[in-house]
């Protein structure tokens, strides 16, 4: 394999890993959304539900983040492989931070 092809391979493998993490965090978001609070005393259930709902949201953000990284890597590999040298512009919106800044 030529050096160039090998490098595209590494980037694509990276993208696959991010896709796996995306799936993992999708599972996390789902599980948090469905987590049972009925075992807790009523006085605690409200706080527990608020916590779970917030964290289901965080997990969804992580999922989106992983999706973003995967997409960026796929685009990078495509850019380097293609004869069209124009950047795909996906990097501009890359952000590893949680929260509104995303």
């Amino acid at each position, binding site marked *: 394999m030529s050096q160039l092809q090998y490098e595209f391979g590494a980037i694509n493998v990276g993208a696959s890993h991010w896709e796996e993490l995306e799936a993992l965090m999708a599972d996390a978001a789902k599980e948090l959304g469905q987590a049972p609070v009925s075992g807790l005393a009523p006085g605690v259930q409200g706080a527990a539900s608020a916590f779970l709902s917030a964290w289901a949201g965080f997990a969804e953000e992580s999922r989106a983040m992983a999706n973003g990284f995967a997409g960026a890597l796929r685009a990078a590999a495509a850019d380097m492989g293609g004869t069209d040298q124009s950047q795909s512009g996906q*990097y501009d919106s890359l952000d590893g931070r949680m929260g509104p800044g995303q």
Partner: protein
Amino acid sequence: MSGTVTIEVPAPQPEIRRPDGDPGGADSLAQALYATAGRYEEFADAGEGLRDLSGWWGSAYTAYQEAAGTASGEHVSLARTVKRVANAVTAYADTLRDLLRTYDELRDRRTALDGDRADLIADINATTDATPSDISALQARAAYLAERYQALVADHDSWLRQVTANEDLLRHTFESATGLGDALSEFGGLSDLAQSAICKVGSPMSGASPEQVAAWWEGLTDAEREAVIAAYPDVIGSADGLPASVRDDANRVSLDGDLARLGAKEDDGTIDSSERDALDNARKTEEALADADAFTDPITGERPGGQLWLYDPGAFDGDGRVAVAIGDLDTADDVAVFTPGISTDMGDVVSYANDMQHLYEATRYNGDGSSVATMFWLGYDTPSGPIDWATLTEGRAEDGGRRLADAFDGLRASRGDDPAHLTAIGHSYGSTTTSYAAGSFDLDAEDVVLIGSPGAGPSDEASDFSVGQDHVYVGRDSRDFVAFLGDEGWVGKFGIGLGTDPSSEDFDATRFEAERPGRGATPIDGGAHSSYLAHDSESLYNISLIVDGHGDQVNESAQSYDPWYGEPEDPEWTRDPSSGVPGRSETREP
């Protein structure tokens, strides 16, 4: 006598309501949160690993690397926060189980009191032509009944406070981890109550001595105690000076947490090899603890219960630290701590916990009725094998000796004014470790037993030990080749052996019978090195007497000796050994 006499019968009280909540349901929630923590950890690890991708360069790559790095760091914080909340839910469930047990007891008391009240009323109504003494008898009964109702009210109030505190603590913990800022903070998931308690003087996080830690715990309210167990289970579970029951509560939270989190990673397919080892260690610990909890005392038929006194599966590069006890270390009259030897790691905990069961049984069966607790302590870094350089030198034994002495200081400090009779038992390399503890670090025990010892470390004589010469006992199977590694007479160490052979005349400890029938004809007999705690053996019989506080009654055997003109000689070589013989080697009802 005429006129009406009124006898005040106390009103039945209090109303006792079952607390809300279901421990099993709470555990399910904890399970989901531990799984979440595992996923966040995986994201953090993988994210870190994915920062460097060969073949990419330029400003876009740099932007990616920065973003991935930030993401990884934040996910470490998120994982830590959600794990803390998971621990708090586990602690809530464990406490709720205890509270439900107390609820049943309170209800039973109320029922009994109500029954006595009904009897009293019936007796009052049935009394006609009451004499003065009839009246004062009934009044006395009424007064006594009133006292007992008051006591129940007081106990119920205190219990109710605990129920409320348990709910409040969990609610606060959820609240401390819900906002994104909190979730990302290094204090995410830590209740304010726990944070303020852990900052008080004498806290185990401040490097305080065992006595100071004991005093710190004494000074905490019940609510603070529950809060720190939930928030800092790994710190509380290993803090010398704290009661064993407290360490046990905290360590069980940690253990449940590891089982859930690592089990979820196993299910997700994201578990790596060191996590797999940690999960295996956790499962074996769970098994050993279940065996200890299920064990029944041979005399009372009741379950003394097990205690997880130490649980640290990541220590020493994954070999782990663990200590499992049978019986109650906080209240037993006689407490024995067993330190194992070469190549022991946490994976061995099930069979060693079984040996502790044998020791408990033997001490009770042949004992004077005193209560017993026996603990297997793997709190030091054992060398991995005889060809490990660490075995041929005493460094690990010295470090281990210091740790063992600290553990004993912790056991002492936690008992305060109710000291136990403490025996330290060291096997193989663990006996050299125990020798360091007693010889160099002033081990605070009453009796020391060395079995299968390759050498007594820094001490040339039993009188060098902190317990005094009369309290040093040695068991050596004549076919135990490891014992040959001990130095004899004036030969000197020459880099082989780990000190003076403690079964020798030179060392001058009390040697007890420790032979086995069916022993081989030569020292190439693997079983000779590690059968000292087998049931119905001479050695277990004698060790149990020592643990029970009756070391003066062991069956002594002649010490080995090293004449100047030849090889060391062991008189036990030719004695006919026994097995299962009452008064010599019977350690249980057949």
